[in-house]
């Protein structure tokens, strides 16, 4: 198995993270305090400073990964450090706060950081879990390739429509045009499909996965279509079935990719919010020294 950001250099950053937590725990429990442990002790200031600097370094990953000319470590190394030190940050800040929480700004900063950390942990899991599922769903093709196949199929179907009665042709062509997949992430996750078809006498009806249209065409055969008409309908149904499979693959690809990336819309904005909240936290505790 190739080296991932988790196994980068035999987990060098995992070891650093464990070392940081062990050292912090020793510092926390070794400190002889006259008050309940809090961020205002020697250990409190030390761990707080380390945690704040760590947060800035972790946030800098966003810059470093776009900075292709940088020689400051590899992006894989940075990602590895980002993951392990980010997890260690949870323990470090818990010790910094002396496990105290309350309805105040300091806990808000901590809570924002926790959301960022746990969304990141989900991200690690997603990056480990979903790519294989996507690969299996897409039959090792990109979404672009699937879409290209769909376009080709649509052209083939459109070209074959001349062999059908005009109302069937326009119905099928309309159904192709009215194929509407979700374009918002919530709808994508729900597997929403707003495709419609205009059926004679029924108006516009939902046509999820082409099923309504296919059912209608099957009905036509059953109602006694004969000869070439029946064969043509049969071949059209086969093509539409292929199209339905392709569309559901694309939909599943969209869903899986969204699941793989969805955490970033929490992780990144709240990371910035957490950094700002921590800066304000530091200013506030010394303002009200």
């Amino acid at each position: 198995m190739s080296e991932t950001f988790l196994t980068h250099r035999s987990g060098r950053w995992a070891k650093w993270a464990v070392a940081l937590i062990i050292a912090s725990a020793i510092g926390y429990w070794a400190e002889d305090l006259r008050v309940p442990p809090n961020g205002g002790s020697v250990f409190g200031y030390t761990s707080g400073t380390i945690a704040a600097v760590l947060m800035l370094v972790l946030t800098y990953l966003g810059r470093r990964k776009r900075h292709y000319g940088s020689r400051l470590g590899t992006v894989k190394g940075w990602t590895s450090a980002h993951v392990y030190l980010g997890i260690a940050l949870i323990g470090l800040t818990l010790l910094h706060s002396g496990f105290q929480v309350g309805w105040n700004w300091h806990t808000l900063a901590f809570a924002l950081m926790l959301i960022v950390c746990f969304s990141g942990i989900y991200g690690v899991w997603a990056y480990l879990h979903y790519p294989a599922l996507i690969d299996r769903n897409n039959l090792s093709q990109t979404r672009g390739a699937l879409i290209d196949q769909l376009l080709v199929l649509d052209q083939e179907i459109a070209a074959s429509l001349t062999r059908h009665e005009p109302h069937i042709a326009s119905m099928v062509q309309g159904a192709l045009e009215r194929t509407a997949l979700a374009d918002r992430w919530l709808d994508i996750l729900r597997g929403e499909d707003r495709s419609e078809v205009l059926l004679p006498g029924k108006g516009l009806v939902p046509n999820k996965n082409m099923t309504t249209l296919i059912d209608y065409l099957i009905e036509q055969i059953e109602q006694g279509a004969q000869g070439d008409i029946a064969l043509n309908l049969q071949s059209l149904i086969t093509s539409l079935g292929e199209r339905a499979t392709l569309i559901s693959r694309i939909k599943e690809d969209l869903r899986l990719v969204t699941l793989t990336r969805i955490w970033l819309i929490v992780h990144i904005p709240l990371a910035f919010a957490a950094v700002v909240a921590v800066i304000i936290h530091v200013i506030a505790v010394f303002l009200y020294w």
Partner: protein
Amino acid sequence: MKIIIQRVSERQSGQLEQRFEGDVLRIGRASDQDIRIDEFDLPLSIGEITESGGQLILTAKAPKLIRLNGGEVRQQTLKASDQIIIADTEIVIENATPNGGRLRVRSSAPRSKKSAAATSILAAVAPGPSKRWLSWAAIIATLYLGWISPWSTTSFTTVKTHSSEASLVSLAQVSSEAMWTTGPLHNVHRSIGDDCSACHETPFEPVTDAACLSCHESKPHHFDPITFHAADSMLGRCAECHIEHVEPSHLILRDDQGCTDCHADIDNIAGARSQLRAVSSWSAGHPEFKVSIPRLEQAGRWLTERISIDSPLAKSSSNLIFPHSVHMNPDGIEGPEGPEQLNCGSCHQPDEGEIGMRPVSMEQHCSSCHLLTFDPDHPDRELPHGEPDELLLMMEEFYARRTLIGATLAAGRPAFDAERPGRTNQLDEAARAEALRLAKELAVQSAEDIFERTTCAICHDVTRRSDGVTPAWEVAPVYINQHWMPLSRFDHGAHASETCESCHAAETSLVSSDILMPDIASCQTCHGDEHTDDQLVSVCLDCHSFHLDRFDPMVQFSAKLERQSSALLASGIPLVTAQMAKATTPAIDPKQPEDTNPSSHQPVIQKEDQNSTLHKAQAGSER
């Protein structure tokens, strides 16, 4: 509805006729529309034509895109030669009858740039909103909540206004200053509310002692900071022992470390000669208790001496003869109404708060047994307590009355006639002189008896003072010590589950010079260190206080020291001696007489006014 649709194409010459039969004639971009308008930026459905009451009705599904005779339309009855314009397509109504109607459709649009592929949207799908904009929104929201909004509410920047004065500004203030607190204030400080600047006077500066002392101006110091200014300079801020905003809330740090940090090495810390002994811990590093023993000086003043309780010198010299063992005889003791069993509570009763004990007094606790009679023939006659100099005269007066009125005094004594009516009521001179002489003799006899053998001598140390003719007796002043250990607190009520004897070995005490106070080992049978596992957890502050009433208020001293240092800086004249002299003035608290030795760390030697002491002793005060 039967309608003929005639399509006119400009690019491809020729016409195409299409017959429509149905209820709804649909107009739109989609291929399933009856009138298809093939322009890719149009909606799939734009409008519909239906039949109602023998007329054609146009209903716009995209009203902004469809115009009827140049005007906007939502629903309109169509008539002949109406003109419908949708983008570059014109539809002219040539015949408006529902069955046999005719429409002419003419499109001037160029050929669609791209066939309306069903999948055109799919490639462009992005999961969710822009992270960049969300990030900026998150940063701005956090800045607003944590910086902009609080800036207008912080007590450093605002003039305090009444909360009723709502304004537009306060509407914009979504946060309160309370959001910065790391924990609630202690109960005693709740009245401060959310006025942070009451204590946090200056931004970015720790809370000063001045802020504390502005309210707690009478809080006394821990020692005399003039003498021990080295130690004073090491003393931390108030806030080092008085912690706020912590949970669980405990305003006073009660751990021993705060005390032993200095007291374990007090000789070096004090910076001047101190009477204190080093204390490093309760169980292993606390010296034996000292007791304050009042001693009568030659000059007649009571001085308090501090002596370790395990020293052979630790003997009380109250000048009272009182064997506890006799009084607490388990077989009982002769009382006024027969034998009586006394116990501790017979004489020692707790005070109102059940902290200490009420003073024992002759009148309340002794006199029922110890009658001050002087003449066995007159057991109802008693002498007053506490006035030894008056007693001889009083007895002489008593006996003179008897001799002068001729009562029989004793067997073998000549009787004088009492005064009777009809007789001369004057004794002759010789008889009178004899009567008075006899009275005096009887009085002296009785006085010798009570002072030297019975009544007084039972309890008091009496010395006969012969100054010629009339004898006199001096009763040594008595001082019953009420506070053997004035430097510590002891709550008798809290120890009510213990017996008196478990700490005070009174039953076996034969002499009153025994000091019946427990030693440290006695306390240590139950009380352990603050980290003990099998004893009662006890800390310094359980028995000792930091702020000691016998010292001046801290605020006064800090002012003095400030003046001193600034004066030194200004003039170079050492004011220390002046300050030292000032420090020798008596303490403000009259209940706690002060030692006048300025170098004494613990001025516990109580010096009392000579006259008042003698007066007390002579008055028989048992306090």
